[in-house]
């Protein structure tokens, strides 16, 4: 028989949850399940309820802004990244389309379940926030750098 790795172990071995205490991992594992997406499959769409928070294990997901007839990709996320920041922020609505570019595996957390656990035990909430905020700040910084359109200048300099 193939031994299946318990979900809790998978969670704790993910970069985002590095150093998570067993208490918290078993608590949040109750909100989690394994998911897979085929290349090209839509994970969620702009405007959907942000009822799921993902941590990507393998594969690649593109965040896209749908526009007339075609979509513009603004960022790709790979193994180790988190997906759907909107789970945490009212009104809990997805801000982009998320599409699997390659076959992708992820852990999906039920957002309502996770929010309840955070509200019930502020130590859990605080631990997750401490993981979440640096990632968001880094993404914001990166987005700003992208917005500078660095390579548009004439040469290498500007």
């Amino acid at each position: 028989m193939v031994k299946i790795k318990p979900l809790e172990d998978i969670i704790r071995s993910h970069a985002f949850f590095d150093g998570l205490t067993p208490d918290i991992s078993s608590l949040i594992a109750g909100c989690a399940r394994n998911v897979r997406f085929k290349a090209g499959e839509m994970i969620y769409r702009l405007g959907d309820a942000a009822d799921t928070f993902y941590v990507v294990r393998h594969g690649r997901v593109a965040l896209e802004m749908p526009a007339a007839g075609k979509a513009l990709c603004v960022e790709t996320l790979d193994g180790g990244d988190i997906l759907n920041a909107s789970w945490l922020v009212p009104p809990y609505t997805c801000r982009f389309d998320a599409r699997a570019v390659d076959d992708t595996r992820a852990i999906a957390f039920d957002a309502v379940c996770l929010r309840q656990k955070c509200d019930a035990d502020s130590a859990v909430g605080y631990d997750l926030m401490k993981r979440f905020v640096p990632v968001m700040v880094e993404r914001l910084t990166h987005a700003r750098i992208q917005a500078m359109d660095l390579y548009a200048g004439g040469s290498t300099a500007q």
Partner: protein
Amino acid sequence: MLSADQVKPGAQAVLSRADFDHLITVLQAEGYDVIGPTVDNGAVVYQEIDNAGALPEGVASRQAAGRYRLEKRADNALFGYIAGAQSWRPYLFQPSRTVWRAEKSGDELSFTEPEEPAPKMAFLGMRACELAAIELQDRVFMNGDAPDPDYAARRSGALFIAVNCGEAGETCFCVSMDTGPKVTRGHDLVLTELIAPDAHDFLVEIETEAGAEIARKLPLRAAEPQEVGRADAILAETAQSMGRALDTNGLKEILQDNQDAPQWGDVAERCLSCANCTLVCPTCFCNTTEDVTALDGESAERRQRWASCFNLDFSYLHGGPVRPSVEARYRQWMTHKLAHWIDQFGDSGCVGCGRCISWCPASIDITEEAAALRRHAEEADNGEN
């Protein structure tokens, strides 16, 4: 009269004022264009002169921050002014010149330098700081394996007849920069003007063989010990009467380590970015090239001309200048002059001539700006302790 074999490098002799014309005639006979001081437009400038009558006899120059004016002296000194308004720089490093011409026709493209023989020039009346400035420009234009052909040709043919300064100007600080007032190197001949109630002579000191060749043709007499003594005394007094001083101790680090000091913003409020200081400075070497095409579209030429770090386009990169603010441009000029020069060419780029002070329309004084920055640096240091 001295015999010809007494007139050799290292020798001292005396030329009387009455015989001074001979110097110019001999230089001309030897094929030199004589460039010397003369009064033009209210300033002493260096121009080609035909005879000693063109020299600024009895003229004094008074300078102060943002000011320059000529006065009459009580005596008839020929070199009684402070160093000229413009230095000798334009004669060696031309303000504008054609570098090459390009011809294009069919499958041909060729480049040719203009065939202009460099003039053979004798510079008469060079001051110690000016010789020091030329030594610095030599390091820029004649360094490495590719000397600037135009500069090198002008420079190698030139004869330098220096004059020791009989007095210091209000904006002079060569003593601080260790470049004067005594002429010690770089010259072929050096004169010290000796004026007494009953005599007007020049102590002539011969430095090089090229200088000796000219001196041999002059009616020189042996120098008396007291004449040599008087020349020394004059120089000592000049050295004592510098109008300005610049403390160079640790100045390089002070400038390079305080590029974000508030003093830069302060001077930027006064600086007009007019580039005058860079035009009159004898050591400024920045230049630019321009390529122009003739109307026929088949020939083009490259021109080189003086440029200034105060101009916006000096640092232009696609998208804009690197130093858009006056603050950054003044900082560049002063830091380069007093600090980066030492890294780049081994010595400060300032010889203490004071021209940038006299000719600044905003009366900005490089010695005061350096002192202000030093005070800032010292306060910052004290604050840390």
